[in-house]
C-alpha cells in the first residue's frame, strides 16, 4: 500500500460531519476545450474567424460580446450542434463530433418538453446506457441540487421561468458532461432570479468541477462567475471582417467575488470599453 489512487477524492476523517459537504452529484472528468483558428461563415458572410484559445479542465470561461458577434455560434460549435466551422476544435484530445455526448447544452430558452413532467424532462438528459435505478437516483439528486424536488411532478407550464431554467440546467447535468455549455441561460430571467441562478451555478460548479463555457452579454455576470473572460468583437475598422478574440482576461479574486470590489469595477469598465459602451 503506497499512495491512494490519484483520482480518488481527498476524504476527511471519518468523524467529520459528512452531510455538510456538498455531495458531488456529478463527478465528471472535466475536459479541456482547444480552439485552433476556429472560424465560421454563413453563406459567404464571415461571423467568426481566427479564434484560438484553450479552456482548461474545470475552468469557467465566460464568452462576452455584443449581440450577433458570434458568441452562440462559437458555443454551438463546441456542442457539435453546428459542424460547419473551419479550423480545429478539440474536446479533451478528440475532435468535437456531431451532438457531442461529452458536452451538454443549457439553452437560452429552457426548451422543456411541455407534455413531460419536470422529472421526465430531466431524465431526457440521462446517458442512454445508464441503468434505470441509477438514473432515478441521479435525477433525484439533481432535483435536490436545483431545488425542484417538490415540483418534480409538475409540467413545465405549471412552473416559473426561473424554475424551468433550473430544470433545464439539471437536464444538462444529468449526462455528467465533461464540458457544460450555457447559452445565455439567465438572459430571460428577472434580475433577482438571475442572481439566484448565478449562485446556483456556482454551487453546481463547486460540487461537480465540470468545465463551463458560459455565453453572456452581461458584464457583471461574467465577472461574477468566470475564471477568465473571452471578449469577442469585430475590428472597429471593418465590422464585415467577422468577430474574433478581442481580449482574454483573467478575473481577479476567487468566487464568490465581492460585487463591489475595486478590481472588478476597473475590469468592468475595461470590458464595457471593449464592447464599445461608454462606462461613464
Amino acid at each position: 500500500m503506497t499512495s491512494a489512487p490519484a483520482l480518488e477524492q481527498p476524504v476527511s476523517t471519518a468523524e467529520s460531519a459528512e452531510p455538510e459537504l456538498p455531495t458531488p452529484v456529478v463527478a465528471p472528468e472535466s475536459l479541456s476545450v482547444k480552439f485552433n483558428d476556429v472560424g465560421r461563415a454563413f453563406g459567404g458572410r464571415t461571423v467568426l474567424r481566427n479564434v484560438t484559445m484553450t479552456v482548461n479542465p474545470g475552468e469557467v470561461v465566460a464568452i462576452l460580446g455584443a449581440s450577433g458577434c458570434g458568441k452562440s455560434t462559437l458555443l454551438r460549435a463546441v456542442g457539435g450542434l453546428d459542424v460547419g466551422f473551419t479550423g480545429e476544435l478539440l474536446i479533451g484530445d478528440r475532435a468535437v463530433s456531431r451532438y457531442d455526448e461529452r458536452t451538454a447544452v443549457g439553452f437560452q430558452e429552457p426548451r422543456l418538453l411541455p407534455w413531460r413532467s419536470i422529472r421526465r424532462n430531466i431524465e431526457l438528459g440521462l446517458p442512454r446506457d445508464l441503468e434505470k435505478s441509477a438514473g432515478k437516483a441521479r435525477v433525484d439528486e439533481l432535483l435536490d441540487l436545483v431545488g425542484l424536488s417538490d415540483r418534480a411532478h409538475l409540467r413545465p407550464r405549471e412552473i416559473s421561468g426561473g424554475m424551468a431554467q433550473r430544470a433545464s440546467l439539471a437536464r444538462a447535468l444529468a449526462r455528467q458532461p465533461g464540458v457544460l455549455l450555457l447559452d445565455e441561460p439567465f438572459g430571460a430571467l428577472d434580475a433577482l432570479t438571475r442572481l439566484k441562478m448565478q449562485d446556483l451555478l456556482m454551487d453546481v460548479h463547486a460540487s461537480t468541477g465540470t468545465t463551463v463555457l458560459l455565453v453572456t452579454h452581461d458584464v457583471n455576470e461574467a465577472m461574477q462567475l468566470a475564471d477568465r473572460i473571452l471578449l469577442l468583437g469585430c475590428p472597429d475598422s471593418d465590422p464585415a471582417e467577422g468577430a474574433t478574440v478581442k481580449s482574454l482576461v483573467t478575473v481577479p479574486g476567487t468566487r464568490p467575488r465581492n460585487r463591489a470590489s475595486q478590481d472588478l469595477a476597473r475590469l468592468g469598465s475595461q470590458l464595457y470599453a471593449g464592447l464599445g459602451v461608454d462606462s461613464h
Partner: protein
Amino acid sequence: MTTTLATQSAPPRRAKSLPGGRILIGAAVPLLIVGVWWLVTGPLNLFTATQLPAPQSVIEAGVGLLDGGALFAHVGVSVQRVLLGFLFGAAAGLLLGSLLGLSRIADGLLHPTVGAFRAVPSLAWVPLILLWVGIGEDGKVLLIAIGAFFPVFTSVHSALRHVDPHLVEAGRAFGYHGTRLLTAVQLPAVVPPVFSGLRLALAQSWLFLVAAELLASSEGLGFLLIESQNNGRVDRLLLAIVLLAILGKITDALLGVIERKALKTWA
C-alpha cells in the same frame, strides 16, 4: 416557448352541483326542439302529416322498422361502412402524412402531387369509382376512405413540419435521433393537431357515407333516406336524419374520450 408563468396550484375544480349536469344542460335544447316539434304538429296542427309528421309517428316508424330487424340492419351496415372507411383513410393519412412530414425528400417529391389530388373535390371521384370499382361495398368504403384521408393527412403533415425546431434540437443535443427522437419529441408534439384532424375526418366519413348510399345501395341509412323519399314516408325520412345525428354524435364522443386520454398523457 413560454417564458414566465406564475406558479400556482391547479385551479380548483368546479364543484359539480348535479351528477351528469353537463349532459342535462346539453340535452336542454334538443328537448326544447322536440317540444316545439310536438306543439306545431299536434296541438297547434300547423302541418299535415306528409309535411311534418309528429315526433311520436317518427318513433312509431322506428318501432315498426325495429320489428322486422330492418332498422338494425340499416344502422349496422352504415356504421360498418363508416368505421372501415374511416380506419383505412385515417391510417393512410397518418402514414403518408408522417412520411412527408418527416422526410424532406419525400415531401419534395410527393407533396405537389398529393396537393393536386386534394384540390379535386372528393365527390368528383364518384363516377370514376363507379366505373373502376363499382358501387358495391368496396366502392363505398373507398369513397369514405378518400373523404377521411385528406383531413388526417393535412393535419399530420403540417403538424410534423411545424414541431418546434428548438425542441427537436434539444432532443438531438441530448443524443436522440431516428425513432427515439420521433417517439420522444416529434410524435407527442403533434398529438393535439392530429386528433383535430381525426375528428374532422370522422365527420367527413359520415358525409361521404350518405353520399355513397344515396347514389346506389340496398341498405343503410342513406338508402332509408332515398327509399322513404320515394315512398313519401316523411316519418322514416326524419327517423333516418335523427339516427344520423345520434350516430355521428356518439362516434365523435367516443373519439373525444380517446383524445382526452391522449392529451392527458401527451399534452
